């Protein structure tokens, strides 16, 4: 499903060039469950942003679902993100003025789906993450675990094939974190490819495949 060939990403910080990713080769099959681990600044987030088409490689080639997406223009990559990729963030990133249901509906709104269908799908998604009772609660009225579940429901609203989670438990206590991971793993079992960045060894250990990064390189990959 995912194929990275010699992908590098450099950032210019002032006069200096910082190599965030150095010629990364990676192959990920559909339905995999992967944990990406490594110290801060090892390039995990850069890799995830590239995979999610929020960023583009400085060199190398990225193909998704057999299609080269390296050179897609802005509107095309927005479309790919909308249809194939769901994001879950450490800081949830819910829109504070919108209630849970409206937050979940955002990708559907952006995709131009009719209100009637939107309503139906949001209700289903809320039920999936066990928050049907909280549909009209604002983010400020929800707990951390609930916020992340809303965020997961939002990520899944377009039924993406690829789910990218950047430290999804980073702001949650251990018990809530496990619960959230349980929700994500459930989605993986239903077919979504799940890629999780984590610092947490315990969570990393739950993944079938673990990729460890350091200094912009993949230094260990238990599937390779």
């Amino acid at each position, binding site marked *: 499903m995912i194929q990275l060939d010699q992908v590098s990403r450099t950032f210019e910080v002032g006069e200096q060039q910082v190599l965030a990713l150095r010629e990364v080769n990676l192959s990920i099959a559909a339905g995999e469950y992967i944990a990406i681990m490594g110290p801060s600044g090892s390039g995990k*987030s850069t890799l995830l*942003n590239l995979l*999610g088409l*929020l*960023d583009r490689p400085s060199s190398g080639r990225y193909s998704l679902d057999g299609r080269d997406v390296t050179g897609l223009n*802005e*509107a095309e990559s*927005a*479309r790919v*993100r*909308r*249809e194939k990729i769901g*994001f879950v*963030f450490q*800081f949830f*990133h819910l*829109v504070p*003025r*919108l209630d849970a249901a409206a937050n979940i509906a*955002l*990708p559907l*709104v*952006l*995709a*131009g789906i009719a209100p009637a269908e939107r309503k139906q799908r949001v209700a289903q998604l809320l039920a999936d993450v066990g928050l049907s009772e909280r549909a009209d609660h604002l983010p400020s009225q929800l707990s951390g675990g609930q916020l992340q579940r809303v965020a997961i429901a*939002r990520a899944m609203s*377009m039924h993406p094939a690829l789910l990218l989670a950047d430290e999804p438990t980073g702001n949650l206590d251990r018990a809530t974190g496990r619960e959230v991971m349980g929700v994500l793993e459930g989605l993986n079992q239903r077919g979504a490819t799940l890629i999780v960045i984590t610092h947490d060894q315990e969570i990393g250990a739950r993944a079938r495949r673990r990729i460890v990064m350091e200094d912009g390189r993949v230094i260990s990959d238990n599937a390779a």
Partner: protein
Amino acid sequence: MRLVDTFSLAWGTLAQQPRRTALIGLAMSIGVGAVVVLTALGEGARGYVLEQFAGLGTNLIIVIPGRAETTGAAPGVLSGQSTRDLTLDDANAVARIPWVNDVAPLNVGSAQVTRGSLGREAVLLGSTAPLLTIRHMHLGIGHFLPPGPSDQALPVCVLGDKIRRELFGNANPLGGWVRIGDRRFRVIGTLAAQGQQMGFNTDEVVVIPVAAAQQLLNTPSLFRILIEARGRAAVQRVKEDTLALLKTRHEGEADVTVITQDAVLATFDRILTALTLAVGGIAAISLGVAGVLIMNVMLVSVAQRRAEIGLLKALGASGGNVRALFLVEAGLIASLGAAGGVVLGFAASFTLGRVYPQLPIVPPLWAVTAAVATAILAGLLFAWLPARRAAKLDAALSLTRR
């Protein structure tokens, strides 16, 4: 993304910050309101002047002795130097031109009008019977000058309302005698109170037969000949015929100036319309200022909402979607402001109309439309830069920065 959803998302953002929205909207409102009120005033002034002219009769043609140096009838040239006098015979000849409805020769002077010990200075109008209708004067009581040959210096007069009050008080003036200059005149009628009419107060005049006025003022010449054409369409024709006739009568010299009320009217119309446009344009500058304000606020808003913009992009919003959101937001503020401004403008116009009831103050539709369109356009135009900046935000960067 559906248009309805774009609007509702943008509206949500605005509703989130009611004070900010209200304040920018207010700036827009003041701009639009100013345009509406000022153009209403301008139009009011124009309407007032036109009404005044119309009160004098739009079929009116005025012959002035003397030839203006410049060709054409400049309305400013109301007196000229003439070699030949304009005479009563000229007026009688003009009356025979086809399509002429009525002719009134006119002499104007000022004279002391006295009755017993009471006296005052009055504007003396020497004319004939048709003056009443041509100048749209209204008779109070009695009769106006009797019809008949214009060279008869009958000792009769018609008093303006104010003169009547001052000389006769509550007594019946009809049949009474007044002294004008060194002659005695019998009062045969009075004019109804009409007040100011193009800087000419009919309440303070005394009308006597033109022949009597020429004797009193000791002049063989007329001040004006007023001609009323039969309908507006005949005005131009009568004007040309009059010029031709007087040229023949004055030994082939075109030494009179003929102006038409229509021409004067058109000139005033043009001047006042230009004035209204200028005033409206100046007011429209404030719309530009409001636009800059929108730009400023939107730029701050883009900076504040980086994370939200990044999120929208991660969820699949294209740069175009983001830009549309910000433009719609600006458009909504501008529209709200414009709507407020229209209300404000109409309210102010209404109040002004109450304070100055003689001015027909109604905001012209074109100005209201133009003001609203300019406001929305300015809002969108000035929001373009912030919207573009938002659309170009690096999603990955905006999401990670906190």
